[in-house]
């Protein structure tokens, strides 16, 4: 045996290895293919040998050949052999080869399952690693199913190296075997908080990939990601998370509000361009998602635009490109803010990089206004001249036309100018876009009546100079414009000054070289012209001239009669005969002009594309009614979806089978949802970006009254530039006039409407030279003037609008939600009920309110049902298994999850309110990070508190009715389309129905929590207090309880570098007391400091968090500590030190926890609590401010508020209940408090007192 090995090894010395192969190929450049085929023969020989080393060598060479494009799948079995070698070296070669050439169709893959499993559980981590890497490339559904469990186990491997690989590969496993997602998800989620940054990053990666495809299901993770975002320093992870948020915000605008603040912070603080860019991008996404209801984000937009400007101005082309790309996103919703950077964009048109120029062009499209259109187009025309003979020029041409014609020529104030531009564009040689120019000419000439005279003159000149355009006809697309020119001249020939000359121009022999369809138009319109000329001559009784004209036609037309083009020939011969007949009549001195003209009488009217829709339905006509009896109902429903009417008119359809269908529908919806959930790639209706440049609005279709201040006559070929000057002059004049008028007028009237840009050059002030208004022209009579059809009913933003309205109308009619106003934690102005009791609520008014909002929801659901119906019907057949068990199983988890989602969905208002106020962030330290914690914190506690009243089933669900279902469905991943019996199905459905019902009610509640009735906005508040400060550095801190661990608090410290030097190697150390200890990493001594995980450039601030463990929380205490750091400037570096005292107040052990009023009452009745009270004199602030302060600074939540009396609740990290009853009268506030721990309560009250003594 040993001998054999040795022999094999010696043989091998004479074999080629990979390097020899490569060298050989390089030496056989001329006959490479032949050389390689001999090599492959050798490899085949080598693979036949027993020696694994030889085989591995051969496989290695095959991998190389595979890269060169040779099919090596024939060696798949040998690759498997090499993979199963016990030696790492060979194993790795085998796995590499497999990863390069195995795929789902490779049949030997099924032989590998056990080998891979063995490798995965190998004691050698590198074997495992190699197997994971390989598997990630060729995992099949079978492998995924068989190995999912093994990989799951590896996710908790001791070595981070394996953990991160196992986490990452799970994504591939999910793809191939979706059923694994549900069981694996909790662990995956856990890995988001893995101590190893690599593992964490991998988990983020996987979840981001999953969420990107199906964001709705991952909304519940938002709080967790939010926490990661505010704590992570790994840019790669941050980018991923921020991108994920970008995908989530369209689904949940409130999330967006919350995000703006930390994102802006990041934008300010990060030095990594990639991170900055992604932040800006997500802020834009947020702003887009908010744009409907939030007017006050100008600061954020400005910030984004500013930062983008920096990117665009950068010399790095990549940044420039991305900057422009992001800019175009802002443009869609906030065109004004981009428009101010026009100069910059125009500059980019000169860039040497074509892709940048194209981006800039895209931007220009959205930036034009009435004011600057001419100027921009002029710039573009210059570029057109410069770009001679490139495809870029064509791009420019189409852009010019796009820009001018957008929104029904909305921005064109002077159509003569536009026609001139079009005519100028015809001078471009070799463009492919002749037809585009032509169609514009036709469109304008037909629709803008007042311009016809001018247009006809221009077209006549064009026809006259046709030879210039037709240089080489074959490739030249520009001759298409002659089509338009000929038609316009013919159709509107009454405007021609010299029709005879044009007629002659149209009948030149050269015309015969034009493409057929153009000749056809020529011939036809020559006839029209002929009619005009005849009429003219007969009017002047110049029969001689009339006869000459006929003769001209008779002479010239035969050329066209010979045309190879059928249409030309047909028209020409027809007209020729006609003219001959006319000539005969003329010779008899018969007046024919009138009859000839009659041939072409009648005007062509443009019709708006939506005209049909605008016709009101006559009374008594029911479009939805059946014309014939519907097909019999006994047919099996599976076939029905084919019936067109059933799909389009679901209401009718349903009304006929209400009983059955209601159930059916619900069931089908369920089925469909589960199916979607099963499919990790089910892509929900994408939140398409808002359509701003929508289809042409009917209002602006042109009908023109000429402003006579513009001199009409421009002789010869026009130069569009003239119009620029004219326009300037005109505007000047108008302005002057207006000023005169304005002096007379009182200013008041202008007041509000123009507040935004009251400058004299504002958009509205520019009166177009041509008033454009078509409605009456292109619309049928008595068309409805509504323009609602311009809105896309599926527009997600519109849908969201409705939702918000719903919330409010259920509560009060004020248009703004509290969250936009309050910089504090939420008040609960309404009695908070646990949802269980809510059903049989006693308070009547509340009941009605709820009803109304419920009703609305119902309605909405109905609509949704209708929409989904058709889809559902198709899927109807698919049934599910295990549903019931699943449902039971998943319920507890579900309850918690939805709780969490709720919290995320209705984020505490503290931070988001300030979101709009950028200045506030900039001036003070970042607003409390409480939010992150808060969102996760209270949910479970709340659930426990109210558990007596609320079964898990009736846990508050998400506030939006569509969401709970989706979230839920995601929990049911496991069931895949398998058949089941109807009965079970129905039962399940009932359960679900039940569930939803309560869910909705609860959801309603939780939303109302978020509303508040204050009129005045509160002053900004911050929980951060000064820790220590010297000339180099300032530290502020805030302490937050940690709900997950009853003995931990998190101290967030913001370090601000006040010096001009660089601060680094910061070390944070605290002298532990018996009660409180700083948590240090494993292996660190009890007196070691913690390194602050960042450095501070001058003027920058950043936040670090330190975890402390505490034993007793009933007493406040102070900890002494020291911060040491190195100050590094250009010349020197010094070691500095700063002492501080950390004050752990009792307040910091409290966690804001919502409490229902009934649970609260029970708590007070129980008698376990001990009381204490406090009086505050001379409090001079509104009651709601007072409450807000208590909520904010002391982590309470309002349970109930009646006039000047409110009950409040909070909970300590160790579960102590703290209840307050706050009353106020005449500047005196009395607080009665109860708590199960008297000393804690005493201290908290002291602290509250202190808070108010300060102000």
């Amino acid at each position, binding site marked *: 045996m040993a001998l054999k090995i*040795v022999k094999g*090894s010696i043989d091998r*010395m004479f074999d080629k*290895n*990979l*390097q020899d192969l490569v*060298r050989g190929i*390089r030496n056989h450049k001329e006959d490479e293919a032949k050389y390689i085929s001999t090599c492959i023969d050798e490899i085949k020989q080598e693979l036949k040998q027993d020696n694994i*080393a030889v085989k591995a060598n051969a496989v*290695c060479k095959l*991998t*190389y050949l595979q*890269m*060169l*494009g*040779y*099919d090596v799948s024939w060696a798949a079995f040998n690759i498997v052999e090499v993979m199963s070698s016990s030696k*790492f*070296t060979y194993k*790795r070669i085998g796995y*590499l080869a497999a990863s390069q050439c195995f*795929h*789902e169709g490779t049949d030997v893959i099924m032989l590998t399952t056990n080998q891979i499993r063995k490798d995965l559980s190998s004691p*050698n981590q*590198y074997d495992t*690693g190699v197997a*994971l*890497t390989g598997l*990630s*490339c060729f995992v099949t559904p079978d492998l995924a199913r068989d190995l999912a469990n093994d990989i799951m186990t590896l996710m908790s491997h001791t070595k981070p*190296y394996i953990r991160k*690989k196992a986490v*990452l*590969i799970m*994504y591939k496993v999910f793809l191939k075997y979706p059923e694994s997602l549900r069981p694996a998800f909790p662990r995956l989620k856990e890995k988001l908080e893995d101590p190893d940054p*690599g593992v964490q*990053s*991998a988990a983020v*990666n*996987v979840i*981001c*990939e999953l969420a*990107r495809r199906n964001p709705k299901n991952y909304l519940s993770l938002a709080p967790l990601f939010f926490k990661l975002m505010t704590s992570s320093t790994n840019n*790669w992870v941050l*980018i991923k998370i921020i*991108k994920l948020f970008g995908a989530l915000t369209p689904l949940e605008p409130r999330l967006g509000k919350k995000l703006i603040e930390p994102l802006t912070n990041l934008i300010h603080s990060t030095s990594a361009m*990639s991170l900055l*860019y*992604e932040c800006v991008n997500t802020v834009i996404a947020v702003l887009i998602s908010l744009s409907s209801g939030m007017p006050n984000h100008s600061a954020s937009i400005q910030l984004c635009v500013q930062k983008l400007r920096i990117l665009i101005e950068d010399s790095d*082309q*990549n*940044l*420039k*490109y*991305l900057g422009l790309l992001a800019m175009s996103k802002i443009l869609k919703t906030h065109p004004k803010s981009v428009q101010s950077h026009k100069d910059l964009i125009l500059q980019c048109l000169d860039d*040497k*990089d*074509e*892709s*940048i120029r194209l981006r800039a062009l895209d931007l220009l499209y959205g930036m034009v206004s009435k004011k600057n259109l001419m100027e921009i187009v002029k710039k573009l025309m210059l570029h057109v001249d410069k770009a001679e003979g490139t495809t870029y020029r064509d791009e420019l041409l189409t852009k010019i036309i796009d820009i001018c014609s957008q929104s029904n020529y909305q921005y064109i104030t002077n159509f003569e100018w536009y026609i001139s531009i079009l005519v100028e564009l015809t001078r471009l040689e070799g463009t492919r876009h002749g037809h585009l120019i032509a169609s514009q000419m036709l469109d304008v000439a037909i629709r803008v009546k007042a311009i016809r005279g001018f247009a006809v003159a221009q077209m006549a000149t064009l026809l006259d100079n046709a030879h210039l355009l037709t240089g080489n006809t074959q490739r030249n697309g520009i001759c298409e414009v002659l089509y338009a020119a000929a038609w316009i001249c013919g159709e509107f020939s009454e405007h021609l000054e010299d029709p005879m000359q044009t007629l002659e121009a149209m009948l030149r022999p050269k015309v015969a070289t034009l493409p057929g369809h153009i000749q056809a138009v020529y011939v036809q319109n020559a006839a029209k012209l002929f009619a005009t000329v005849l009429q003219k001559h007969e009017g002047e009784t110049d029969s001689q001239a009339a006869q000459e004209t006929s003769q001209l036609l008779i002479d010239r037309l035969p050329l066209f009669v010979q045309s190879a083009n059928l249409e030309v020939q047909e028209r020409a011969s027809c007209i020729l005969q006609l003219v001959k007949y006319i000539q005969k009549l003329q010779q008899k001195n018969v007046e024919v002009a009138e009859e000839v003209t009659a041939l072409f009488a009648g005007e062509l009217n443009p019709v708006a594309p939506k005209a049909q829709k605008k016709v009101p339905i006559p009374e008594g006509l029911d479009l939805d009614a059946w014309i014939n009896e519907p097909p019999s109902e006994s047919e099996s429903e599976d076939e029905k979806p084919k019936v067109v009417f059933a799909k389009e008119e679901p209401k009718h359809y349903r009304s006929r089978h209400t009983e059955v269908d209601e159930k059916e529908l619900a069931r089908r919806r369920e089925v469909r949802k589960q199916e979607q959930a099963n499919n990790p790639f089910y892509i929900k209706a994408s939140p398409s970006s808002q359509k701003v440049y929508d289809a042409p609005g009917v209002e602006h279709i042109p009908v023109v009254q000429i402003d006579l201040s513009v001199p009409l006559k421009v002789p010869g070929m026009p130069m569009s530039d003239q119009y620029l000057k004219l326009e300037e002059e005109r505007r000047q004049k108008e302005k002057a006039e207006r000023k005169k008028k304005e002096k007379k007028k009182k200013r008041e009237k202008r007041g509000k409407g123009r507040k935004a840009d009251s400058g004299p050059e504002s958009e509205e002030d520019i009166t177009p030279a041509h008033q454009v208004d078509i409605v009456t022209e292109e619309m049928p009579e008595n068309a409805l003037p509504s323009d609602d059809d311009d809105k896309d009913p599926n527009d997600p933003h519109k849908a969201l609008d409705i939702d918000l309205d719903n919330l409010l109308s259920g509560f009060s009619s004020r248009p703004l939600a509290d969250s936009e106003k309050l910089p504090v934690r939420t008040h609960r102005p309404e009695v908070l009920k646990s949802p269980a009791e809510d059903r049989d609520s006693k308070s009547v008014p509340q009941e009605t309110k709820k009803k109304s909002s419920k009703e609305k929801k119902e309605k909405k659901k109905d609509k949704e049902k209708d929409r989904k119906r058709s889809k559902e019907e198709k899927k109807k057949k698919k049934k599910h298994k295990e549903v019931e068990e699943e449902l039971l199983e998943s319920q507890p988890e579900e309850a918690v999850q939805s709780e969490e989602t709720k919290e995320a969905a209705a984020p505490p208002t503290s931070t988001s309110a300030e979101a709009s106020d950028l200045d506030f962030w900039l001036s003070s330290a970042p607003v409390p990070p409480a939010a992150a914690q808060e969102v996760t914190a209270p949910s479970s506690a709340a659930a426990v508190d109210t558990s007596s009243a609320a079964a898990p089933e009736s846990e508050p669900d998400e506030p939006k009715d569509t969401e709970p279902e989706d979230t839920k469905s995601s929990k049911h991943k496991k069931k895949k389309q398998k058949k089941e019996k109807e009965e079970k199905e129905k039962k399940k459905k009932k359960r679900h129905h039940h569930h939803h019902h309560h869910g909705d009610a609860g959801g309603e509640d939780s939303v109302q929590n978020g509303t508040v009735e204050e009129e005045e906005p509160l002053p900004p508040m911050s929980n951060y207090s000064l820790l220590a400060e010297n000339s180099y550095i300032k530290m502020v801190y805030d302490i937050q309880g940690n709900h997950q661990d009853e003995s931990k608090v998190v101290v967030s410290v913001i370090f601000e570098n006040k010096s001009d030097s660089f601060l680094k190697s910061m070390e944070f150390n605290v002298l532990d007391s018996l009660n409180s200890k700083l948590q240090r990493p494993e292996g660190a001594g009890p007196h070691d400091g913690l390194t602050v995980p960042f450095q501070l450039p001058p003027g920058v601030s950043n936040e670090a968090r330190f975890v402390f463990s505490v034993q007793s929380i009933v007493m406040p205490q102070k900890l002494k500590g020291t911060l040491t750091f190195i100050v590094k400037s250009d010349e020197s570096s010094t070691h500095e030190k700063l002492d501080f005292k950390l004050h752990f107040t009792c307040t910091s052990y409290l966690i804001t926890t919502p409490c229902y009023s009934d649970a609260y009452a029970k708590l007070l009745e129980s008698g376990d609590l001990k009381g204490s009270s406090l009086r505050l004199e001379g409090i001079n602030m509104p009651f709601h401010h007072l409450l807000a302060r208590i909520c904010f600074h002391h982590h309470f939540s309002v349970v109930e508020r009646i006039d000047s009396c409110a009950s409040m609740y909070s909970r300590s990290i160790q579960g102590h209940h703290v209840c307050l009853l706050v009353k106020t009268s005449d500047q005196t506030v009395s607080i009665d408090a109860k708590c199960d721990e008297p000393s804690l309560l005493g201290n908290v009250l002291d602290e509250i007192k202190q808070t108010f003594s300060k102000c």
Partner: protein
Amino acid sequence: MIKAILIFNNHGKPRLSKFYEHYTEDTEQQIIRETFHLVSKRDENICNFLEGGLLIGGSENKLIYRHYATLYFVFCVDSSESELGILDLIQVFVETLDKCFENVCELDLIFHMDKVHNILAEMVMGGMVLETNMSEIITQAEAHNKMEKSETFIFQCPRQDR
């Protein structure tokens, strides 16, 4: 997701190709050729992103590349990746190669494609970024090499190849 990682030289000769989705060998070659075509005609000093549909999967995907001396490093990615992030990643990749091969040049890649693959496998796994920290990547690569050396038998006489 990263769809593919391609390295080819100024003449379009592939030096490494890693596809994270399955294509036939022929299609792979076509993709490499097409990519080379798109990338090579771009001037230096213009932006390193390309949009537009390709054989490799429609306009969803972007090509992000860097050009070093004789080699193009091209990553084909979808919209979930950050453009600038990937550019940095390419830089990390090249720097890692530079460390592992000590002053890397095209020849290193030509003769040691397998090693390049192994290094890449420590950075990107199945189309997802595994590690971005260069020292961590190098540590793992070296650990692998050590493993390999410890397994060396007499027959593996060291060769100096270039």
